[in-house]
């Protein structure tokens, strides 16, 4: 039934330009020399492309002050995002299994709380968390960010996972047991392979959240020992606050966008399935 008319081709091009032009722009900007952007360069493409910014940020020059902070922030971003993702997905998998498969009191409570948190204005917790974290010595530590990150991603993870788990043909577990598999074998050989794609999708969406988060990152950290890349970038203004180092900021932007692009390229189909699961069926 579907057909691709001229309108569809035009639409296709418009969407590509829409999505990729700003990305092309920061890539182009990252190859401009710091001198070029400091004096002002209205051209889209660099006049004299150079790898200098990448060398400075990744510590391949003698001056390590910029790269030191940036690499520390990258390490924090990766560490905090990955730990938060793993923990959130484990907790969410248990909860989603119960929600999809079992009948118990309090199911409605968990689901409504998850929905409420999904809509929650994160910034309204910043003040009280700041106060509490100072008391518990969690301020400016990895756990200080990991704990709120995993909490705020639980709703999305539970939602996505329970939508996936409802689709799994659980009878196959019993069928395998009837055929002589032990319950562990049935779980490992039948259920795990069926559930893995859902768990994986939830993990990607959770990682994106943690990688992207900014409000908590600037409020609950104070030094490079736990500051993540978005927070670090917002403080990275260079010597002249009225003339930020455009090309270096663009370079940092490109570097932190690479993991996102790699994940998108590898798992686009799963991300789309995860984002829209539950949105239509309710």
């Amino acid at each position, binding site marked *: 039934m579907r057909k691709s008319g001229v309108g569809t081709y035009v639409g296709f091009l418009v969407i590509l330009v829409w999505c*990729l032009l700003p990305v092309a*722009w920061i890539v182009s900007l990252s190859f401009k020399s710091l001198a070029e952007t400091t004096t002002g360069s209205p051209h889209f493409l660099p006049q004299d492309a150079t790898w200098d910014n990448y060398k400075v940020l990744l510590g391949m020059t003698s001056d390590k002050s910029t790269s030191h902070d940036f690499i520390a922030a990258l390490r924090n971003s990766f560490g905090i995002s990955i730990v938060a993702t793993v923990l959130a997905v484990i907790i969410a998998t248990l909860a989603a299994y119960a929600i999809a498969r079992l009948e*118990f009191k309090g199911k409605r409570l968990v689901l409504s*709380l998850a929905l409420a948190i999904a809509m929650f204005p994160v910034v*309204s917790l910043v003040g009280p968390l700041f106060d509490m974290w100072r008391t518990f010595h969690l301020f400016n530590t990895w756990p200080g960010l990991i704990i709120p990150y995993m909490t705020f991603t639980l709703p999305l993870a539970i939602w996505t996972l329970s939508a996936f788990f409802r689709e799994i043909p659980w009878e196959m577990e019993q069928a395998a047991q009837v055929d002589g598999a032990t319950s562990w074998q049935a779980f490992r050989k039948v259920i795990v392979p069926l559930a893995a794609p859902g768990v994986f999708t939830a993990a990607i969406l959770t990682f994106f959240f943690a990688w992207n988060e900014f409000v908590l990152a600037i409020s609950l950290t104070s030094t490079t020992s736990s500051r993540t890349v978005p927070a670090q970038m917002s403080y990275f203004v260079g010597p002249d606050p009225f003339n930020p180092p455009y090309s270096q900021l663009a370079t940092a932007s490109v570097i932190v966008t690479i993991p996102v692009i790699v994940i998108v390229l590898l798992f*686009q189909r799963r991300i789309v399935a995860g984002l829209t699961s539950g949105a239509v069926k309710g």
Partner: protein
Amino acid sequence: MTATTVPRKVDKAAPTVISDRSVAENRLGQKLVAPALIMMVLVTAYPMLQALYLSLFRYRLTTPNDKGFIGVDNYVTILTDSLFWKDTLNTVIIMVVTVAIELVIGFAFAMVMHRIIFARGVMRTAILIPYGIITVVSAFAWQFTFSINNGWVNSWFDWVPGISASTNWYGDHWHAMFAIMVSEIWKTTPFMALLLLAGLSQVSEDMLEAAKVDGATASQRLFKVILPNMRAAIMVAVLFRALDAFRIFDNIFIMTRGAQNTESSSFLTYRQAIEQFQLGMGSALSVLLFLTVLLLAWLIVKFFRVDLAQARGEG
């Protein structure tokens, strides 16, 4: 969902019969959700109550000995301050304008993605990049785009009346708001488009074909067949995006730091609580922000429900 609701109905019909199995199932279910529930309560519900409590105090971290109970004075101060209302208005403007534009562009994108039969993978990858990109990065990219010295907007669009090489996009309120909204719209339209695409694929092709045979024009098919059948998807998309847009913070923080009166409610709350250490006042702002979001969610749900009922009455 149907599979899980059936046993509950049986339980209701015979409430006296509770088998060992269902007791065990109940207990296992509660055990499995316990970690998630505890986390969510500890990290959101408890601090929210803490905020409610702190909001009744004069409490500034720089002068901790001056802490004292002042009742609702913080709320009175906030609600009588024009800055609070200005920031709320900014936030509402950003929310309404961005969601409205995203809905239109997102729907157009969804139509293209629905019809396209080539390069579907390329399209999906492209559309997910703005979604996945860090908001701070998007904010920087657009800040530089509109920059007077380094941007390309002024040179590419100088044929548009009002834009010239010397247009300073961060020099006044509306220009700055425009730049902020562009960044917000660019980043979040793909999410809207994907949700709408999911709704669009639920609309039956047979129904569209039938409408076509009956002589419905393209716009009649859009407004009388496609859109009414997508109402649930549109509602979910609008609800999520509106609440998300209302929390706008990252873009403003990076692009203007609230200069030119572009501050949002979230930014005001952050500034009071974190930058100025006004924990009492900041907590009161947190509570107000939370209540506003609740009100907003209720309004959106109510608005669409009324709409649904009307549509049903007409049909």
